[in-house]
């Protein structure tokens, strides 16, 4: 009995493995992707990067402009994330099974979260670009909408995991709904939630560049502009500053996490 189960599992694993290989081969064939030829292209691409993406003195002269745009982008990401966090907290309290007021509210909040999460940020920026035009509000909104979806989901899980027992206890003392939320649910879930917000700020600074390219705002717009005018030295400088900014934010949030958890 036991042996047959093991054999069956082994057979299943083998079939799965074979399936993946066949699938890979098929998709390469359908999309006309040649593994060898793409490998062959790597040295050439490297050479191009090495010769074109070099920061020179002229590019460094643009640094103040770049820094200004970079800061604008960073602040926009932080603003979008924190404001989204406030809304997400509300939606998550409504959507979590532990703290749900009623089923209708819960369903609505989960639907809103799911909708905004499952449409990619890129799609949001393009949709919002049409309705709001090319300005920084569009970029802000694109990040905001995507963040609300993700954070609501994360907060719901945090609340469900953290608060079940104490919510029951406080309900039994006769505490009101908002007393329970503010004194049991929020304090218990707060570090986890702050951690998610920090994670989202990091992610959003990265996405902000892409959103900027699409909506013509912030550092992304600058990147796009110099890229299209083939001023690759500046493009390289912009990329480096973005990378440095992201690393800096990551270090900072690791620090903050250590303190609060």
């Amino acid at each position, binding site marked *: 009995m036991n042996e047959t189960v093991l054999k069956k599992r082994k057979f299943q694993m083998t079939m799965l493995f074979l399936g993946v290989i066949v699938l890979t081969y098929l998709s390469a064939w359908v999309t006309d992707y040649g593994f060898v030829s793409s490998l062959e292209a790597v040295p050439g691409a490297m050479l191009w990067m090495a010769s074109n993406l070099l920061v020179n003195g002229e590019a460094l002269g643009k640094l103040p402009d770049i820094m200004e745009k970079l800061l604008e982008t960073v602040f926009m990401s932080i603003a979008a994330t924190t404001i989204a966090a406030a809304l997400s907290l509300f939606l998550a309290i409504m959507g979590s099974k532990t703290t749900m007021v009623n089923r209708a509210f819960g369903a609505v909040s989960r639907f809103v979260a799911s909708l905004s999460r499952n449409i990619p940020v890129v799609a949001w920026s393009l949709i919002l670009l049409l309705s709001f035009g090319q300005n920084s509000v569009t970029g802000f909104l694109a990040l905001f909408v995507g963040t609300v979806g993700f954070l609501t989901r994360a907060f719901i899980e945090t609340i469900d995991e953290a608060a079940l*027992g*104490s919510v*029951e*206890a*406080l*309900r*039994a*003392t*006769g*505490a*009101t*709904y*908002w*007393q*329970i939320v*503010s*004194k*049991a649910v929020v*304090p*218990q879930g*707060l*570090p986890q939630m702050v951690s998610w917000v920090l994670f989202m700020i990091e992610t959003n600074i990265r996405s902000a560049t892409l959103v900027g390219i699409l909506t013509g705002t912030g550092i992304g717009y600058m990147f796009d502009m110099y890229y299209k005018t083939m001023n690759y030295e500046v493009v390289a400088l912009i990329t480096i500053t973005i990378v440095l900014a992201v690393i800096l934010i990551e270090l900072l949030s690791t620090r903050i996490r250590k303190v609060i958890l």
Partner: protein
Amino acid sequence: MPLLEVNGLSKSYQPGNPILKDVSFSVEEGEFVAVIGPSGAGKSTMLRCLNRMVDIGEGQVFFDGKDVGAQNKRGLRDVRKNIGMVFQHYNLVPRLTVIENVLHGRFGYKSTLQGVLGRFTEAEKRKAFELLEKLGIAEHAYKRCDQLSGGQQQRVGICRALIQDPKIILCDEPIASLDPNSSKVIMDHLKTISIEFGITCIVNLHQVDVAKDYANRIIGLKKGEVVFDGPSLLLTPQFTDEIYGMKTAVETRELITV
């Protein structure tokens, strides 16, 4: 009039699968009642029906003259603030300090805004410290609850129930997750509370010996029905055998003596 009266209480979570069947009993002020029975007998559900943490199916529960099932939101709040509750897993907010957790017991007396802002009076704070002192954990008042041992956390849970000035305390398996020493401490405290403050206690237990040692009266539940209700002294081995089914009763006793 008895403090608590349960009339023909029935409850089922799924139709056709009743958890409680026609449970009736009444509890006088100052009684120390143990509810015993095997897992799944409906002890927890019954206890939670008393303060409507679980909605009452059929039948009625009268607490202090009020029909618990018929209360609106505000009435239910009034009922609940007079009923303390102690849980198996303590159900504290682990990241908050001991004193904060104890003061949570006062929320029933406060407006939402006072509660949210954490406005407690001097008298309430003094009372909280007195209770902590009484249960021997005053030195931990400013520690976070997740730094305390199980027995200490349960004492915080008892303080939180006591600061409500309750007429009755419901304990759902208060010692099921504790070692024998802490269990004894907790049960002793519950007994002291019932004698000193005259607070009625209903304690769910699955240790028959503990129930017999501490309770004046025992209610035995089996498959949702009351199969024994009387003074602890009258709980003979035959009854325990009936409540638990013969084999289990022997095993339970062995476990306790270890």
